[in-house]
Structure formats: structure tokens, C-alpha cells
């Protein structure tokens, strides 16, 4: 035996890089839509699921995911890893997440620049963090740890926020750019989050996007938002995922696609979930923008 050939058992899971799925649009996967989706036949796009919903041992959730996965790429979107928290990652949760990656071999894997657990309490919300050199180090450690556990890079999602931290010393875009550069992770650009945060903090969404490392973006999220009032009675946007994508977010999306090129794009809709054809139509609108850009690229190349 050639000593240069290393045994395949040196690592429990091989390191993988997902197969690119190209410029296709997908939707959140909601089980109530499964019969309608199956009746439609295989879709061109992908389906995204919240990882935590499939961390039970068995039963109908896994059956639904196995069914949809037969004909569609899956995007595994974690919402509870607390990458942005100061505490160490939850090893048991990381193991569950790794198990899902190994079982379903998703095309895309993502998590949030946020935290949701402190000490023993899980708050079930994406909570914000200050942007400092110290938190940057901690977030990079957490991304490294997660990527090592699942043996592949993740896409890290920019947050929507309602408050800022007095102690922050760098911009969100600088922070995110540094995480990507240091960990090798990709980025999930949530354009609705950019729009919500820009409105809430009084900055320009276009400036933010101009400063965002678009080359690292491996997925885009689009979603709807709601409006409330802040302490001064002025507009405060809420990242509610409960309605159609706003016109302003569509416009920003076209700008991003023109600059970045076509990347997988998700229509995210998590509450007041509409019938399947409504969600499908939102995805078709994103697909039309992606296709228009790809056709223009093909004409340029010709």
C-alpha cells in the first residue's frame, strides 16, 4: 500500500463545499404547503427550512423534509446557534446541527449574526450585539467552531436591528467583512434586514450595500416588514416576515443582482403564511429578476 494514501477514516465527516445551485429563487418550506407543492410537480427553485424544526428524533417533520428533498435542493437555516453571544456555543446543539447537515446534505447552510441564549434562558429572538474588536474575535471563534463541526463553510446573515450599542467601535459592514475574511465563511445578505435597519438607524441602505462585501454573498433573503413607531413617534420598521416583499426592497434587490450577479434568493415568509400560490408567485418575481440578469449576461458574453 502506498504510504502517501491516507486512510479515509481520518475524519468522521469529509470536508465539503456545497454544489452551487446558481441563480434560482426559493421559498421557506411550510408543511401545510406540501400537498400543493407536490400537486404542482417539482419546482425549479430550492426550499429553506429552520434547522431547529427538524431536531426531533423522527415523525412527520422528517418525513416532510425527506419528501421535498427528493426533487429540490434544501437550504438549512439555523436560527438559534447564538454565534453573536459571548457564551461558548452549545455543544449539544452543534452536534444536532451537524447531524442534520450529514443527513440532508443541504445545498446551503446559514446562521445569524445574533444571539438568542444567555446563561440558561433561550429567548427565541435574534438579539443584537455591539460591534467591537472583542466581539469580532468571539464571533470569528464561533464561526470557526461551527464550520469545523459541520465540515463546510456557512453563510452568515446580517441582522435587522432596532437599537444600537453605545460601545460599538466599528460599522456593521466592517464587522461582517472582517468575519468573512478571517473565517472564510460566506454571507447571506438579507436585503429586507438592510432596509429595516437603515430606516431604523437613519442610514442609507444604498451606502450600506455599497460597503457590503458582495463578492462573499452566497444567498439573498427577501421578506416583508411591518411598521410601528419609535420613542419619538417616528417610523420604526419591524422585520416581521408576515407579508409580501416591499417595492423598495425589490428595487434594492435589482441593484444588488446587477452588481453581484445572480445568487440563490429566498422569499422568507414565517407568519400569517399565505396559500402556496402566493408564495410561489413571490419566488417567481425574484426568479424573473435573476433570469433577466442572467440573460443580459449571456448576451454580453455572445
Amino acid at each position, binding site marked *: 500500500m502506498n504510504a502517501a494514501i491516507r486512510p479515509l477514516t481520518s475524519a468522521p465527516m469529509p470536508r465539503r463545499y456545497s454544489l452551487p445551485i446558481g441563480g434560482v429563487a426559493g421559498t421557506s418550506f411550510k408543511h401545510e404547503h406540501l400537498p400543493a407543492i407536490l400537486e404542482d410537480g417539482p419546482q425549479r427553485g430550492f426550499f429553506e427550512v429552520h434547522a*431547529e424544526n427538524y431536531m*426531533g428524533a*423522527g415523525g412527520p417533520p422528517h418525513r416532510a423534509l425527506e419528501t421535498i428533498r427528493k426533487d429540490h435542493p434544501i437550504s438549512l437555516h439555523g436560527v438559534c446557534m447564538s454565534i453573536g453571544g459571548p457564551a461558548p456555543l452549545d455543544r449539544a446543539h452543534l452536534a444536532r446541527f451537524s447531524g442534520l447537515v450529514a443527513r440532508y446534505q443541504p445545498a446551503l447552510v446559514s446562521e445569524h449574526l445574533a444571539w438568542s441564549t444567555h446563561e440558561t434562558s433561550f*429567548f*427565541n*429572538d435574534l438579539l*443584537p*450585539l455591539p460591534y467591537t474588536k472583542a466581539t469580532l474575535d468571539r464571533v470569528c471563534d464561533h464561526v470557526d467552531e461551527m464550520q469545523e463541526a459541520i465540515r463546510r463553510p456557512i453563510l452568515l446573515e446580517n441582522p435587522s436591528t432596532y*437599537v444600537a450599542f453605545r460601545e460599538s467601535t466599528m460599522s456593521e459592514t466592517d464587522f461582517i467583512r472582517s468575519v468573512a475574511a478571517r473565517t472564510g465563511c460566506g454571507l447571506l445578505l438579507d436585503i429586507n434586514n438592510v432596509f429595516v435597519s437603515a430606516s431604523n438607524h437613519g442610514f442609507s441602505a444604498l451606502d450600506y450595500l455599497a460597503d457590503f462585501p458582495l463578492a462573499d454573498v452566497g444567498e439573498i433573503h427577501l421578506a416583508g416588514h411591518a411598521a410601528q413607531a419609535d420613542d419619538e413617534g417616528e417610523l420604526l420598521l419591524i422585520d416581521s416576515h408576515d407579508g409580501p416583499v416591499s417595492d423598495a426592497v425589490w428595487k434594492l434587490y435589482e441593484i444588488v443582482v446587477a452588481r453581484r450577479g445572480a445568487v440563490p434568493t429566498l422569499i422568507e415568509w414565517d407568519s400569517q403564511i399565505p396559500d402556496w400560490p402566493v408564495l410561489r408567485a413571490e419566488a417567481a418575481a425574484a426568479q424573473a429578476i435573476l433570469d433577466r440578469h442572467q440573460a443580459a449576461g449571456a448576451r454580453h458574453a455572445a
Partner: protein
Amino acid sequence: MPLEPHISYAADFAAALLDPARPAPSLVTGPNGKAAARRYDVYRNNVTVSLIAALAAIYPAVQRITGADFFRAMARFHLRETPPTSPLLFDYGRDFPAFIERYPHAQALPWLADVARIERAWLDAYHAADASPLPPAALAGIAPDQLAGLTLTPHPAVRIVRSPFSTVTIFAANRADGPVHRIDASAAEDALITRPEFDVVVRLLPPGGATFASELIAGRSLGDAAASALDETPDFDIAAGIAGLIDAGAFTSVLPGDAA
């Protein structure tokens, strides 16, 4: 390693999330010095509303019985006292039945906690590992003198909930969509919860059936389980009892005992 001062943001931010009496943490702000109280309240609201929704999703019959306003208030008290400790929300609310039992405003509904216990067992069965249940004729080939010593492997989804009230009837009426008529709550009812394939089924056990099933699930022999059931309910029908449990999908394998 002690926490460095700059990473105390999570402790400071978390402290007021479930406590409306506390002010918003001073470490956060709006843009250009704008106030952050209502902005911070968005997070408070997200946490509380989403956890109430999680409890409502686990306990729909309890919510239907109490009405949404009563349920929201009861759930809010509970989640402030007992926030989730796991990011898996389908695991949340294990302490909710006991909370309902001592919740002062629910004392007029003494069976409500047991309805909640069935709903909690229902969700555990829903997420339990997949396994093929025993076929109906599983015991047909076993010699009569080996029956008393046999033991059975419980299906991962099987659960028993005992109640001194008519809890199975109340549960069934309030998980369905139809109108609920007046129910006499005073008859003791025990529930068998199974998920032989992908649908969770809640059945009413006959008197003595819960003791019989619980002992078999705990790994006691058929003979021992039968003796306990007969001790409690002298006219308990053992043949019908074991056939009913197997038919419900309560077991995955049978281990023959030694010949008597």
C-alpha cells in the same frame, strides 16, 4: 476563565427582556442619541409573544377551553417564571401542566392540567423516533406456557396519561373543530398515546388498562402486568387488553419469556 467586562452586553441586554418592570438597558440607544425604550420593547415583545405562541402551538386544546385572552395571560406568567432552557421549542412547556395546576385563575377547571399533560404527550409522540409497531398477530406463535413470561419493547412514541377526570373526552372534543357540548368531567379516564406510523392517536384505556400498559412499557412481564391490573380491576380483560395495546402500536418487538 472569568468573563471580560466588554462581553457583559448579553447579561445587561437579557436582564430586562422578561421583566417589564425594569427599564431598557442603558447600553443601547437609538440613532443620534434618540431614546431606545420603545425600540428595546420590540425585543421584549418578540420574546414574549413568540413564546406565548409556542405554548399555544403545543397546547391548542387548553387554549380553546380557556379562550385566547385567558391563555395568553396564563402563558405570560408561566414563561416569565420558567423561560425555555433549550433552543428546541417543541421541548418547551414541560412544566406548564404543573403550573396550570397551581394557577389561581384555573382552579375552577381542575382537569385542565391533565388535558395539558395529554397535549404534551401528543407532541412528544409526534417527534419520537420512527419504529415499526408489532403486527396484530405477533403473539399468535408463542406457546401458551411462555405467555406469562414474555416482555415487550415499547414503541418510542408510546405514552400513558392517567387522570381522575374525563380528560380524554375533554381533550378529544377540544382538539377537533366541531362544537363542544357539555361534558361530565367526573369520570376517571386514562389515555394511551401512540404514533404507529405518522399520525398520533389518543385512545381511552379501559379501567385497569393504564396499570397494565405502564408495567409492560416499564419492561415487566405480561404475567406481572396482568397480576397488577387484576389487583386493581378484578374484571380486567387481559386478552382484550394486550390485543388492544398491540393494535394501537404500543410495542415494537416481543421477547419470549422462559417456559413456566
